[in-house]
């Protein structure tokens, strides 16, 4: 595969509080702002608490999920008096860190999230984003405190709905398990280590290091599975089975238990072998998702380096 060169990545945005009750990002941004971090070597750093009203209320969102507001359509819709809070914020963030798709957008946008699922450290990115993938490779080689995995969202940019799509390059760091509203020191320190390594990588990149290509494994969503529900009330009638609970990324085979009903029956996985992720994520109950099923793919990375003028 041919070597790829990129312009220097000199403008980094670190975002937290996109979901106001995911505490690692909230406190990471607050700490960076307290220490007035705005530059590290060749990298200028903008830190943003993206959903301040949700952070104040310690809720995921106020009107609507901010991290679904960044499609091209939603960003270009006119703002009226009845526009939900998060849609307004999305437009403000697009102006501040973007505009999405333009030359003015920040070079790299890193959005910090937590999950109640036992997913360790995940780097979530859209399509073939070589920068994000090389950063993932770097984090994975250096971090020993938790497994580091890549989640690949196969969505074209115009339909990309989450905040990181605003930057020229972007990815989300998702770390769990951590309950909403709770700040765990071990999880915070994983996020801190990832952010430090990210900045280190950017400085190496900008100073001319060549990052070798190679093969990288990632997980890409195939379908999601909802809880069994009561047809009249729509209430759930089963919980994630104890054998699936906390076993994100462990391959599911047909016949493996996935739900245990309140009356004790087991519901089994059907169909092809797939890897479950976001198992029992709190915020997904209302999105009718008990877990996502993914397949493992192998991506071939080109070697990359900064363009020399």
């Amino acid at each position, binding site marked *: 595969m041919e070597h790829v060169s990129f312009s220097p990545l000199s403008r980094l945005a670190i975002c937290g509080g996109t979901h106001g009750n995911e505490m690692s990002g909230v*406190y990471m941004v*607050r*700490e960076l702002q307290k220490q007035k971090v705005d530059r590290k070597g060749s990298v200028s750093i903008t830190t943003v608490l993206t959903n301040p009203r949700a952070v104040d209320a*310690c*809720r995921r969102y106020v009107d609507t999920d901010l991290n679904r507001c960044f499609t091209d359509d939603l960003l270009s819709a006119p703002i009226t008096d009845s526009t939900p809070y998060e849609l307004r914020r999305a437009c403000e963030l697009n102006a501040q860190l973007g505009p999405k798709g333009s030359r003015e957008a920040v070079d790299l946008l890193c959005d910090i999230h937590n999950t*109640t699922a036992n997913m360790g450290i995940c780097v979530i990115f859209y399509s073939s984003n070589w920068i994000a993938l090389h950063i993932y490779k770097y984090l994975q080689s250096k971090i020993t405190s938790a497994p580091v995995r890549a989640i690949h969202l196969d969505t074209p940019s115009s339909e990309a709905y989450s905040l990181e799509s605003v930057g020229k390059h972007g990815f989300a760091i998702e770390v769990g*398990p*951590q*309950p*909403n*509203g*709770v*700040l*765990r*020191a*071990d999880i*915070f*320190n994983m996020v*801190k280590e990832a952010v430090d390594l990210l900045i280190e990588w950017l400085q190496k990149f900008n100073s001319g290091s060549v990052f070798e290509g190679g093969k990288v494994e990632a997980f890409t969503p195939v379908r999601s599975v909802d809880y069994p529900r009561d047809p009249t009330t729509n*209430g*759930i009638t089963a*919980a*994630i*089975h*104890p054998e699936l*609970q906390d076993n994100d990324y462990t391959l599911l085979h047909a016949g493996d238990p996935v739900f*245990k009903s*309140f009356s004790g029956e087991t519901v089994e996985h059907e169909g092809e072998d797939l890897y479950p992720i976001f198992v*029992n994520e*709190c*915020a997904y*109950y*209302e999105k009718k998702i008990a877990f996502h099923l993914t397949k493992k793919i192998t991506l071939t990375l080109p070697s990359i380096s900064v363009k020399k003028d």
Partner: protein
Amino acid sequence: MSSCGNSARVTEARRVAIFGGTHGNEMSGVTLVNLWVKNAAEIQRKRVETKPFITNPKAVEKCSRYVDTDLNRAFTPENLSAPGGDDLPYEVQQAQEINRIFGPKGSPEAYDVVFDLHNTTSNMGCTLILESSKDHFNLQMMNYIKKAIAPASCLVLLNEHPLLKYSTSRSVAKHPVGLEVGPQPQGVLRSNIFEAMRVILKHALDFIELFNEGMEFPPCSVEVFRVLERIDYPRDANGNIIAMVHPNLQDCDWEPLNPGDPMFLTFDGKTIRYQGSGTVYPTFINEAAYYEKQQAFVTTRREALVASAIGKV
């Protein structure tokens, strides 16, 4: 309840309630009570009427802890007698309604037993919460439950502290029993946590049935953890948290914390140590809902309480 030496006569517990959703995002109780409202077969016992009840339906619908104010702090004498009807905060109105149905608190008409079902983000396992060291009926029930689920563990937390005690939903009853199971994130239903709570309630109701049928329970010793003090996070002048529960303390509910042991870790990696005068047993470590109540954990000390023999009147 009359007590003579080491023995007490207690009236039969004919009216029992099981409260779920006192905090609308603590899912085990919400789920169990909804199940039993639909089909109460599992909670039927001879000689006792057991009523499952969702105490905070608006908070349950929003999947939030509360709407206006914490229902589990709302049962103060002032709130229960406050005039104002619809102008009162939602949970105060609820408290008055619950007091009408299951109380009045402190009166002979009050329900005999109320079980209030809770979850915590802390690694507390199964915990029974006792409000009075002199409630021999409750002590005997807790002893029965502990023995029934052994070797699995169920600890007893005693909150009789004059300043830290609070006016709970269950306090409308003659014998209030808190049941706290964790760790479970708010808004999440974990199968193992749900089933553990279900088993504890099964044994609790079995005890009540045996008691009502005339079984006599001899004196027994019950180990409890008595609440001593509340420890807040270190904060700056603006009230912002400047340190996190230390990884050595996180998830170590009920394990001894000795003077000099790590307690908090600042964001830049400095350890803050416990400066108390003796060993304590911390619990409610890093409970999500307690950040706003200025509580990182509570300290307790271990005590053996003696429960009088009991039998029905």
